[in-house]
């Protein structure tokens, strides 16, 4: 089935999916924190767009609430908080050079392929658009993890964590036309609390190690000295 | 009747034991070109010792004084088990050859304890060495005896001797091994050259004498007698197990007489061999004794294996 045979909604979803995937790639390769946060906000915005689109085309009003929540949380609140933190710590000028950047990017690309490979068995039972959406969201999840693995700044970790949430959210909306309302609300609540907690933790970490580099958080280990 | 004969035979054993010792000394003196004491000298020594007032260390406990009686009784009991002139003894049934070895162990146990009782270095040394040697000798001896008992399929000495007797002359490789093993053990256990020298009091060499150094009077007499008895016991064992011919199988007085003569002859011969050996061989260093005894043990084992593999295999 080719894309021209699908309806406009599907086309739009697939385009956004591609963009969201792209955003993940951009984040992965980003070495400046402020730009990272900006791309993250952009991804959140794309997600909001998807949600409202879905709400509109599927006539599912409760998705509007989700869209609003996403907008507030992921496009405004969290990026704002992170940005404030970065400015406060005065690390926005720091460039964290990624080791093996090419390698990571290539790894990210192969993750995308891998996502398709993994979800391939599903293709027999479902529309390819679903598969594509699911594969993209899986790769967003995986790329988010890769982001966390490759970046040392706590801020980047939060961004990675949240982008994993984005991927999940995208999957929920596209593949399953949104979760039940109560679940959505619950998830949103959790994200909110998590965001608040991240804020608290930045404070604590900063006061304890005077930095946000997670590699310095390694007192608790089992390695024989 | 049986019981009476058995008791009489035991008494005979006890009475004849000093004579054998006297004869051995006699032969040895002649071989070494010395003037020999009378054959009855051991009896005189025993009588004299038993009439003397014993002097005992003030450190000694009751065990020191009791031990000689126990040692003598145990050895005497062992003697009643061994057929001397006649087979088919009821005493042999009440205590078989393993029990006999047990009696020896019993006597040795108390002898060694008595050696430790006073608390002198000599006594401890003697006990230590005695237990070392005997603990190596005892398995060798059991091995040799087991060869015999497995051939006869009884551990009853009377039965075993009767079995050999009835079988007639059969050349068994196992018996050759067992015989040599038993001779080696006998020499070690009775404290003869080359393991121990009964006639020296040199601390580097003595074993048996070291333990009984503190004994005197009747206690010494008992212990000496017991060791003469032990010598004779081993002699009789060797003579009657491997060369049982001549021993009486009935309670007929004539047969008994022949039996007595036969055993006296066999013992006399054995004593001569022993005297020759003692004259020719030098005493070994203490730590060579283990090699000697392991050789005996090996012989015993070979005897048993050759019995099992060569003679009784199916």
């Amino acid at each position: 089935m080719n894309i021209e045979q699908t309806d406009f909604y599907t086309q739009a979803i697939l385009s956004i999916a591609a963009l969201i995937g792209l955003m993940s790639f951009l984040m992965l390769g980003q070495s400046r924190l402020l730009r990272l946060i900006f791309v993250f906000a952009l991804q959140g915005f794309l997600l909001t767009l998807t949600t409202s689109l879905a709400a509109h085309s599927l006539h599912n009003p409760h998705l509007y609430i989700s869209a609003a929540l996403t907008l507030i949380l992921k496009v405004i609140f969290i990026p704002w908080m992170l940005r404030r933190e970065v400015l406060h710590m005065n690390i926005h000028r720091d460039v964290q050079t990624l080791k093996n950047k090419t390698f990571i990017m290539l790894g990210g690309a192969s993750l995308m392929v891998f996502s398709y490979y993994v979800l391939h068995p599903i293709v027999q039972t479902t529309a390819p658009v679903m598969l594509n959406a699911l594969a993209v969201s899986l790769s967003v999840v995986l790329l988010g993890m890769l982001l966390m693995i490759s970046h040392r700044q706590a801020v980047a970790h939060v961004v990675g964590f949240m982008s994993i949430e984005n991927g999940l959210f995208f999957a929920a909306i596209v593949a399953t036309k949104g979760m039940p309302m109560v679940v959505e609300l619950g998830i949103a609540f959790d994200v909110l609390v998590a965001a608040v907690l991240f804020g608290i933790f930045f404070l604590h970490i900063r006061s304890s190690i005077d930095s946000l580099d997670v590699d310095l958080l390694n007192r608790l280990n089992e390695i024989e000295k | 009747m049986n019981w009476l004969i058995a008791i009489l035979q035991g008494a005979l054993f006890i009475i004849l034991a000093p004579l054998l010792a006297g004869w051995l000394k006699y032969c040895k003196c002649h071989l070494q070109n010395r003037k020999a004491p009378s054959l009855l000298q051991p009896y005189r020594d025993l009588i004299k010792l038993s009439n003397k007032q014993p002097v005992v260390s003030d450190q000694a406990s009751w065990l020191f004084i009791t031990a000689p009686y126990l040692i003598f009784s145990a050895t005497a009991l062992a003697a009643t088990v061994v057929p001397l002139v006649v087979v088919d003894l009821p005493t042999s049934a009440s205590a078989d050859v393993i029990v006999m070895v047990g009696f020896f162990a019993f006597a040795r146990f108390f002898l060694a304890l008595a050696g430790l009782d006073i608390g002198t270095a000599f006594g401890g040394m003697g006990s230590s060495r005695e237990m070392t040697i005997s603990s190596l000798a005892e398995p060798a001896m059991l091995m040799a005896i087991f060869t015999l008992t497995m051939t006869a399929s009884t551990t009853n000495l009377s039965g075993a001797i009767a079995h050999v007797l009835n079988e007639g002359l059969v050349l068994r490789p196992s018996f050759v091994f067992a015989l040599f093993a038993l001779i080696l053990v006998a020499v070690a256990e009775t404290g003869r050259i080359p393991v121990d020298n009964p006639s020296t009091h040199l601390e580097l060499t003595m074993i048996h004498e070291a333990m009984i150094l503190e004994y005197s009077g009747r206690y010494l007499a008992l212990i000496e007698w017991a060791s003469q008895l032990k010598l004779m016991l081993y002699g009789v064992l060797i003579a009657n197990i491997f060369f049982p011919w001549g021993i009486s199988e009935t309670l007929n007085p004539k047969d008994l007489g022949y039996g007595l003569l036969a055993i006296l002859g066999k013992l006399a011969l054995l004593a001569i061999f022993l005297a020759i050996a003692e004259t020719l061989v030098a005493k070994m260093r203490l730590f060579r004794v283990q090699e000697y005894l392991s050789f005996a043990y090996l012989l015993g084992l070979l005897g048993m294996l050759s019995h099992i593999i060569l003679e009784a295999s199916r």
Partner: protein
Amino acid sequence: MILFSAYLAVLLSFASGLLALIVNQRHLLQSLSDYSFNKLFKNQPQPQAWVNMNLEIQHFPAFLRQAVFILLGLSGLFAVIAGLAVLISNQVITDQIPLGLPWLPWHIRFDCLSGFFFLIIGIGVFAVSLYGPGYVRSYKENQHPFASLGLFTGLFVAGMLLVLLADDAFMFMIAWELMSVASYFLVAFQHEHAANRRAAFLYLLMAEVGALAIILAFGVLASFSDGFTFDALRESRLSVTWSSIAFVLALLGFGMKAGIAPIHVWLPEAHPVAPSHISALMSGVMLKVAIYGLIRFCFDLLSEVQWQWGVVLIILGTVSALAGILYAMMQPNLKRLLAYSSVENIGIIFMVLGLTMIFMATGHPQLAALGLLAALFHAFNHALFKNLLFLGAGILQHQTHELNIDMMGGLIKKMPQTSLLFLVGCMSISSLPLFNGFVSEWLAFQTALQVDVLDNGVLRSLIPVAAAALALTAALAAACFVKVFGLIFLGQPRSHHSEKAHEVQNKFMLAGPALLAGLCFFIGIFPSTIIYLINNASGQLLGQTLPNNNLLSWLWLAPVSAHQASYSPPLVLIAALIAAGICYSYFRRNPLTTVRRAETWDCGFGGLTPRMQYTSSSFTMPFRRIFEKVWIIDEQIHKDMKGAMNQDVSAVHYQLHIHDHSWPHIYSPIAQAVNDLARQVGRIQTGNIRTYLGYSFATLLILLWLIS
């Protein structure tokens, strides 16, 4: 009724444990008794006075100790009664207790084999309970609380009894572990010494490993049957391979508890550090429970015995017996020595059990019954004399505050009764005639001598070698215990403590050992009493008993046939008495020859000192030379020099340490391997969160890849 007394024995031991717990609740008891006398039993001044007196602060601990041990003694007594009753009536009693798993209540089975071991435990516990009150009095309450000692003693005894009653794998394991754990606490009782803690840890670790092996052995059987009851396990039909696996596991498990070489190392560590009456129970009784387990597993649960297993047992038994006694000989610590000697005796029992298996597997059940007789009899005897010796060691420790036999000496004059009892123990364990140890060894030899009936050449040559090793073991044991008795009781005191020592005041402390010593002698003279009992056990277990072909069986011991071998201890005793009597009266006839006491001859050098006596290490020096490869000998001689050119020797320091080969060759490598592995595993936890995320990521990818 029989079962009732068996249960009563278990319950009484529990009760004694629980009673010990209230040692700190005196006030509670006081108020309770006040209340009950005021409200419930009015106007009974005499009982009230009695109770109040016992509840007074100075009387209460002693009273409670008495009460706890009385309960324990009753438990032992009932165990003896139950054991005797079931053995004499030759019954099998089964029952169920609604405990355990919902679909598997505790199955109880009390048959002759259990009964026989009940007898062993009962006698041991009874003797200990006579002995205990006097012994534990020396413990200070704040350092070594009686509550824990009494509680765990009770649990320990109950555990042992329950093992014997168990008729399903689950209850068996619970009882088994109860026994292990309770005894662990007893080993760790005096935990202020690091060595004791180490010993306790080692003990518990090995007990755990052994228990796991046993569980697995049961598991093998259970996977071929439907259920964990012994009845179901008996029905399981296993291939030879699987049953051999089960056998090896059971051997590992039970052998570890029994202390077979080379898995014996906990035994010489743990037994010496426990209080002596506990060491007596552990060494004398608990090891027998392990033997019971092995017999039950191999002869009862595994339906077909293989002769190869017998060979394994013979080899292990021989090695243990020899190694045990040789190591025992080198120990200067009395209780360690006794513990190693237990290894030796267990080795002998295993060896004879191996013979039994061989005869059983090759179709000679009657000879197998003879072997089982010898094994069980030796187990019984070992329980008696090892208990006796440990209790004796306890008395010595109590009176001299020493366990090092190089520090004792001359105690025969200070402690005449103890010395006599100890002598009986030494004679029994050295298997001298007229004592019980000899009878079982005699039976063992008789079993080994039946090798002629076998067709297999390997067996025919192996068994005689084992018999020879048995002879060597017995002779070495005699040497070892000559050393023990001689150095402890004879000679001159080697230390201040042993010079000041005196006989125990508490006669009950002597009563326990005296009971055991009396039994040692009695059984040595009338072995048929026990043989009659064991015959019933082997009849139930193997379906075959010894031929009862001699009417005068109380007088004669003729296990195979009167023609082949016979032994009559009563006659021997009579003859010995006559012989000793004659020579005594003959030599004492002359009144002029009374003994004169004089100083010991000192070669004219003047003054023999106790330090000139032979010590433990000098006594065993010839053995050390002869068998030097058996130990790791660490001998150090250090000379202090003085004088102008530092040429004169002023003092010589001599140090001797004897180590076990199994440590550097078996245990240290295992411990090292575990530590190394743990260190390697520790590396995965780097402390870096990105690594951790990497793990998660990798796991996810791998699993996804695996699944698709």
